[in-house]
């Protein structure tokens, strides 16, 4: 068992700059706010996932929180649920502790898992550098493949002023079996607080 697990982990070569579109992504297994483990692909009905590296404390992540909730409401029933992951080191950012994560998810009614990436291995492997950053993955057989990564839309300050909705457009394309037009978009965010 341990040997098989080692094989699975070592078969993913750590990409220097994280995943590129088309890459097969690492299947993580992380602790959720209800203390249960959640693995990518655990939900057999999921066609893919909207993986969001986010946190409690970053004002940009906070500005996008409502939009993250909306994405889950719209796309979970269509087979693309949200999985939120916090990778910030709680020593450097006490507001992002596991206890604080539970608090925030409860008070803001997260309808999706909010996982703690305690070793920061998942964020590093995926190549997430700031919050919030989305990795949209689609199921291909037993694997999940990156279809889009980056910002949720093109205006973090004002949701109503955004006119390019990167994540929505990408999922709509996947659902319609069309190619994703914009496969990555950069945005200003809070650097992930890596362990020192």
């Amino acid at each position, binding site marked *: 068992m341990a040997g098989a697990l080692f094989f699975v982990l070592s078969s993913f070569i750590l990409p220097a700059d994280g995943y590129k579109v088309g890459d097969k992504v690492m299947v993580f297994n992380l602790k959720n706010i209800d203390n249960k483990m959640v693995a990518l692909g655990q939900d057999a009905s999921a066609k893919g996932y909207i993986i969001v590296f986010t946190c409690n404390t970053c004002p940009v992540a906070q500005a996008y929180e409502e939009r993250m909730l909306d994405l889950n409401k719209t796309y979970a029933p269509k087979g693309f649920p949200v999985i939120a992951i916090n990778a910030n080191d709680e020593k450097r950012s006490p507001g992002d502790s596991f206890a604080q994560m539970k608090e925030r998810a409860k008070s803001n009614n997260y309808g999706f898992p909010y996982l703690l990436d305690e070793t920061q291995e998942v964020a590093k492997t995926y190549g997430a550098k700031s919050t919030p950053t989305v990795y949209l993955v689609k199921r291909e057989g037993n694997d999940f493949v990156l279809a889009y990564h980056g910002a949720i839309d093109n205006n973090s300050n*004002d949701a109503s002023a955004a006119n390019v909705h990167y994540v929505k457009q990408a999922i709509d394309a996947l659902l319609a079996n069309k190619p994703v037009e914009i496969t990555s978009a950069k945005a200003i965010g809070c*650097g992930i607080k890596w362990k020192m």
Partner: protein
Amino acid sequence: MLKKNKKVRLFLLGFFLCSAYWVSAQNVQAIKYPALERLIKSSNNTVLVVNFWATWCKPCVEELPHFEKLNTKYANKNVKVVLINLDAAADLNTKVKPFVAKNNIKSSTYLLDEPDYNTWIDLVSADWSGSLPFTLIVGADNKTRKIFEEPLNETQLESALKPFLN
């Protein structure tokens, strides 16, 4: 009558204190990307240290004093620090200007009003993912460039600058 006089005096005192406060602080302007590009490209014979920050970014706020110190220490060595603020334009008068005044920031500071980030981040540097803080050093030749997508302490900042000095 006496009461009224006191009020007037208090008002005047307040007025003068406030105006002194504003006069000493630099007037932060909102700019668009082309202005930033001109600023970076027209640095004739000057080493530019461009730091991207926001009042809401804690590690950015913590490293600002190092940039201020650098700006003073190397002013006579043709080094110029420029601070590019990325708060929302709506917060210019309510957050950014008061912050700059309160911390007595002397390095030239601009608010970059470009909320569609994906249109310009790659133009600053293709290797910048967009996380803050971010520092770009442009050599006096206007060609040599180095980027740092991480917070810098005083020692790190000085050693980052060193190769650009001659």
